[in-house]
């Protein structure tokens, strides 16, 4: 056990007919988290945020968050250029380093930050190492999908997973959302962006802000859940220097998180998994890296309805993909869904960042009933 609890969570999404700013949306998420924790912003001690400068189109893209999260004239400046769950790991460190501190972990992303398909393409292109990798992928329609396409090729060839299998998985996940549903046929009929990945394998972008409040001593005495373990890990960013057939970053992060949580058999001891599935293949590889299925066994494991249940609400394939806050939002939603009359349980949440998902974070959370 880490000894850190989640005191409150907040997720904010804009209504269909409004265009709130980053600052406004993050304010709403933080306000919701404060309400959930039963505290006011004066109680906030420190904060860690996650944001990506190029995606935002501005350097030091977390600066406005101070005002949104009640962090003015406080040590609320830390910002990771990593996924939201990495920020949660830093938040847990901060909470443990100062027992009793009230730490906000937050991130926000708006799809309009990427302005256009071309802007999104360029941002993804410059996410590749400039000398060896970038020239190879120059001009690609969806540069990030290329690295996951390579992962999919390697994994599917090694384990005999078919394109139908992957399309069916993505279709099932997308069908759990109201607006993003795609049939397997539609997916397989869509244009190839990075074989075997097609246009409709890719989770649609969305707008979301998420805030989690963590502390060793939740101010109101109540907690959404206890963080039993937190692990994060990076592998080589250069695609040619790693085994794309497996998700080594998630495996290393999970080992650490499970060790802290005292989990020896995750398939037996975990009730729910929230794994990134921006491309579908990332979910399959993450499920194996998390120890929920053996190598090559993920496609069967995620079909089942037993325990642990994987991405029961569809994750990014249904909720949409917002780089940074997606894992925090998924964690917050899962906490609510597991608690509300469902008896709580053990949640494992995972998120990736970096070229081809070269860096990953995993949290093991005991969700209060």
């Amino acid at each position: 056990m880490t000894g850190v609890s989640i005191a409150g969570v907040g997720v904010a999404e804009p209504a269909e007919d409004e265009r709130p700013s980053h600052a406004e949306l993050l304010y709403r998420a933080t306000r919701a988290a404060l309400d959930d924790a039963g505290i006011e912003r004066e109680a906030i001690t420190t904060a860690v945020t996650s944001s990506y400068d190029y995606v935002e189109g501005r350097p030091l893209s977390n600066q406005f968050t101070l005002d949104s999260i009640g962090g003015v004239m406080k040590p609320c400046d830390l910002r990771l250029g990593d996924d939201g769950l990495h920020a949660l790991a830093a938040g847990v460190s901060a909470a443990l380093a100062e027992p009793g501190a009230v730490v906000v972990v937050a991130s926000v992303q708006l799809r309009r930050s990427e302005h256009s398909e071309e802007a999104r393409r360029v941002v993804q292109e410059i996410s590749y190492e400039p000398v060896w990798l970038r020239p190879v992928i120059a001009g690609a329609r969806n540069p990030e999908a290329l690295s996951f396409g390579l992962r999919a090729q390697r994994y599917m060839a090694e384990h005999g997973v078919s394109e139908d299998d992957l399309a069916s998985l993505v279709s099932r996940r997308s069908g759990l959302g109201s607006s993003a549903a795609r049939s397997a046929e539609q997916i397989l009929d869509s244009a190839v962006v990075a074989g075997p990945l097609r246009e409709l394998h890719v989770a649609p972008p969305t707008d979301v802000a998420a805030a989690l409040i963590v502390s060793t001593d939740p101010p109101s005495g109540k907690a959404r859940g206890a963080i039993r373990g937190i692990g994060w890990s990076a592998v080589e960013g250069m695609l040619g220097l790693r085994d794309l057939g497996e998700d080594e970053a998630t495996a290393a992060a999970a080992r650490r998180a499970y060790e802290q949580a005292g989990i020896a058999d995750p398939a037996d001891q975990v009730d729910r998994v929230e794994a990134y599935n921006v491309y579908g293949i990332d979910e399959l590889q993450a499920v194996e890296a998390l120890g929920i299925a053996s190598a090559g066994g993920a496609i069967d494991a995620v079909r089942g309805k037993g325990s642990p249940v994987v991405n029961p609400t569809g994750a990014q394939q249904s909720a949409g993909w917002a780089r940074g806050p997606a894992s925090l939002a998924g964690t917050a939603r899962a906490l609510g869904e597991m608690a509300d009359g469902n008896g709580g349980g053990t949640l494992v949440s995972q998120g990736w960042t970096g070229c081809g998902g070269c860096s990953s974070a995993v949290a093991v959370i005991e969700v209060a009933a």
Partner: protein
Amino acid sequence: MSATNGVRRVGVLSVGMMPFARALAEDTQELVYRVSKDALDRAGLRRDDVDAVVMGSAVDPFNGTNESDKFLVAGAGGVGKPYYRNATSGSTAVSTPSLAYEVVASGLADIVLCVCYEKMSDNENSQKVFNYVYDPGFVRPVGLNVPIQCGLEARAYLHRYGISEEEMAAVSVKNLGNAVVNPYAQRGREITVEEVLESPYISWPVKILDTSPVSDGARAAVFASESVIRDLDDDPVWVRGIGRGADSYWYMGRRNKDLGRLDYAYLGAKLAYEMAGIEKPAEEVHYAEPYDPFTYKEMQHIEALGLCEEGGAGRFVQEGKANRDGDLPVNSSGGLLGEGNPIGAGMSRFNWCWLQIKGQAGDCQVERDVDTAACTGWGGMYQYNATVVLGRDA
């Protein structure tokens, strides 16, 4: 690694250094490797001994690659280990060590390698990058960038306290002169107050010789838990205090309406001193490396650290108290002004505090005994501060 609820004492085992220069031939991963290896060698460790890596660099657009750090982590031996990267612009230099401290203090790791880097000379238009930090609706269109805003700040500071440009110049004379004997320095040079005053203005009252140079470089440090450090070092240097302060992004919304006084820096110092149990910093701090990208900025940070009275830093420097042989030496390394300013690698301020306490500062070693030292970082868009206090056992 093991998690615990107890806050552990954290020490610094070693630092990693390399010369700063403009347009270094090595790529950034090589810079990261050089300082990481230097820090590990000095500590007598191998990279396999490191539990986790924390890196810092100012902002991605300086490097021209989104998540540039993901291609550098191997240089720090971080592959397969817990790793993340902090980026708070200039204050990255000291906020990243504070993050590394937290990873060890939390019990989530025993040995953490902290690496900060920047290769500024790869950037063709850093001021354009800085302009894009400002909010797009109100301030960015005005054309604000670092020199312009520093001019505004310096003007406010000089006006508030009745400070002269000669006092600013004295800081540059001290720091460039100090850098002459610093083997890692880019701009060691004996200059006079007159030379500084005659150098061209870049944004009144800030002149070229009030300003730090464009630099490439990296710095590293090894943080360790008490149980580890006791086995490896019989005279440990501890992280005694960390503190950070941050004001609003919005100019119109800042608590600190007067740009001449850095309220958020006073807050960072207050928090660090409270943690360190320091009540009279002018007496209890023996050495300081305040962040000095500009001369007036060293003065503001000396005051925020409580090393002299408010508005008194100019006299403090002119009277020689901040000299290498002074009562309370400041930036004996030459600071950013003399050593160079690869933004994130301004972590050198932290490293020099450690070197001074350990008596390993070479020709930069100050005359007085140093048991306690303080450093600051400054960043965001002029509203972030980070302060660290290092010290040995009493």
